[in-house]
């Protein structure tokens, strides 16, 4: 299988962030809650990226933040994927009224901005990593479900499904043998894109103070904390920003790569 260069670049970028997260489990330059570094020490020397207002090492906090970003990204894709695909399959196979009901609920969910939905979840539960994952996953599930439903409907309209049914294949086997194999490439591309969006959504939530509570070093929180000191210590805002871009661009490139692999017309054109 030929791989496009953008796909490779994407993989490298994502792998980089994953590697940082893994390393952070084994080794950190400083304890991320150690306040002995001094106020807003510039990058260099003992603190490669400097320190924040409380004297905490920025590099250590960024490394821990990578862990949070990936947890939220994969966690919410898992929640959104499972819920969304299930609801989508159900709607795709359902009788008229059930399909209408599910679609109406999905329309309402999609109309809700992710942040608003997240605020509601945080209001009901407490602000925590779990709440963030749940909220983002819920918002995502609506989008995934709608896509799944359309894809399923398209497959079910094919003649070979009718043929298969008349020859006595049960519905569950139709799903596993015909539907899922036909829709997963598109779903995978969509889920990969959603992963990037989830990471950004978590950063926005944390920026607004609705993400995992302090002293959790989520990148969004780091950005928010650095905002007041951006004139005197710009690294504090730039570094988490750059990492966010690296991860999200990486994930999007990977998604593009998936699409190229899954789509035969594109494959032929190269």
């Amino acid at each position, binding site marked *: 299988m030929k791989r496009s260069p953008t796909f490779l670049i994407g993989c490298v970028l994502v792998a980089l962030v994953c590697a940082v997260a893994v390393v952070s489990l084994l080794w950190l330059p400083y304890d991320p*809650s*150690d*306040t002995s570094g001094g*106020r*807003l020490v510039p990058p260099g020397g003992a603190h490669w990226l400097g320190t924040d*207002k*409380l*004297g905490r090492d920025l590099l250590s906090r960024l490394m821990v933040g990578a862990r949070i970003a990936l947890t939220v990204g994969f966690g919410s894709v898992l929640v959104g994927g499972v819920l969304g695909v299930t609801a989508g399959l159900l709607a795709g196979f359902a009788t008229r009224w059930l399909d209408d009901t599910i679609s109406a609920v999905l329309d309402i969910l999609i109309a809700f901005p992710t942040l608003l939905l997240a605020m509601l979840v945080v209001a009901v539960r*407490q*602000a925590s990593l779990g709440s963030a994952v749940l909220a983002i996953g819920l918002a995502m599930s609506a989008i995934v479900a709608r896509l799944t439903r359309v894809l399923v409907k398209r497959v079910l309209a094919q003649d070979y499904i009718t043929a298969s049914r008349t020859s006595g294949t049960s519905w569950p086997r139709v799903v596993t043998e015909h539907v899922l194999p036909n829709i997963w490439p598109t779903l995978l591309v969509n889920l990969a894109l959603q992963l990037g969006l989830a990471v950004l959504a978590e950063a926005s939530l944390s*920026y*607004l*103070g609705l993400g995992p*509570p*302090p*002293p959790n070093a989520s990148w969004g929180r780091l950005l928010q*904390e650095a*905002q*007041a*000191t*951006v*004139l*005197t*210590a710009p690294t504090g805002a730039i570094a988490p920003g750059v990492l966010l871009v690296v991860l999200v661009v990486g994930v999007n490139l990977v998604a593009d790569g998936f699409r190229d692999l899954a789509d035969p017309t594109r494959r032929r054109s190269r």
Partner: protein
Amino acid sequence: MSGILVSSKIVGAALVLSLALAACGTGSGGTTSTAPPAAATIEIGSLYEPQNLDNTAGGGQGVTEVFNGNVYEGLFKLTDAGKVENLLAESHKVSPDGLTYTFTLRKGVKFHSGKPLTSADVKYSIEKVTAKDSQSARKSGFKPVKSIETPDDATVVVKLASRSISLVYNLSYVWIINSAAKNLTTTEDGTGPYKLGAWKRGSTLSLDRFDGYWGAKPTNKGVVFHYFTDATALNNALLTNAVDIVTSEQSPDALAQFKDNKDYRVSDGHSTTKLLLAFNDRKAPFDKPLVRKAVTSAIDNAKLLESIWAGYGSLIGSMVPPTDPWYEDLTKVNPYDVNLAKKELAEAGYAKGFAFTLDTPNYDPHPTAAAFIKSELAKVGITVTINVITADEWYSKVYKNRDFAATLQEHVNDRDVVWYGDPDFYWGYDNPQVTKWVAEAEQAETTEVQTELLKKVNRQIAEDAASDWLYLYPQIVVASSDLSGYPINGLNSQFYVYGIKKG
């Protein structure tokens, strides 16, 4: 009641949101005044736009900033240094039993509408504050008032049910308003040196010199308050000369651009805002003074202050700021000493430490302070769980339902040490001796006795570590260096503008 504690801070929370939404704030257009220096108009930048123009109808700290002493005057005034002086009252007499106060009004005082000031207006104004639907934070101070009489146009007699030494001080917060005035949330009729020019909501509020003023003429022609929701936009306005002065800077890091610049002067005054780590003194483990002392000693307040304010602000070691008459430096009572903290914890039966949840308001500086406290207390074996809540949640969960172990909160008012005499207050500090002293202080015959008693209160609450008073906020005013005569201590967010001069 919330006005006493968190008045400004709901605005603060909104500010964070607006910062997030409007990354690039817009400064209002620069008005370059070319009038002669002596009669220039002063352009003032502020983050606190009034909600409305009535301080008994939830006008907020913004209306205090713009109107107190400028548009409305009280019988007395609280100076920038914290002293109470006569203003619309020429003199007052107190009966020997302390229950009857007779105020003689200044002659020749006119409202902006032209009507002369009479005792009926004073009675009306005080009753406006004590009225049932009044939202004034000062309402509770007037509980002892039994009746207000007006024997003639220039005399007001206030009869009390019990002695109240703070009456005169409390009256400095009562605006004297024309009793015939209407629509006070959008207009005004006061006696101050300025009258309201125009209020463009969301943008500016201008004050014009009032020619019929009874006292000394203001040194400027008028002032315009420019309101910003974004601190960066506000600082940019100052840098581009769109405003001449900023009433209160909220971040030390924005000051770098003004500090070493000879065109600007940064003044570092005392505010009355204290950041508290307030324990729930009713519930274990914080019902034991020794535990509270241990926690207090385990936290390096000096380092926290340096982290957040970078050299500004001060440590006070108690609830009393230096502008209160009963201030004493009590920072030595519970010094920062980790070994002492460990010893006290062991004595209290918590040698292995304990765990508690810290309810933390979601706006600055609380989350930062909470993270610091968590890391400090970990060193003595205490595990802190930070629970971030909104201002509304704080009001219902902590303030009303007392459902908390410990919390962070800013207390903005001066002379608020007396709340430690109220066992029903949210922090639940219950020391009958302190309650007695606070009551006696209010009943005192002289301010000396009052001061002595409140000093005792102050020392006792520090001994008991009733709360941990982390630090006192600085009041930072930044102004063009050709400006003079502006107030530097933001007492209760007052901002007298009549002395400000350009050039």
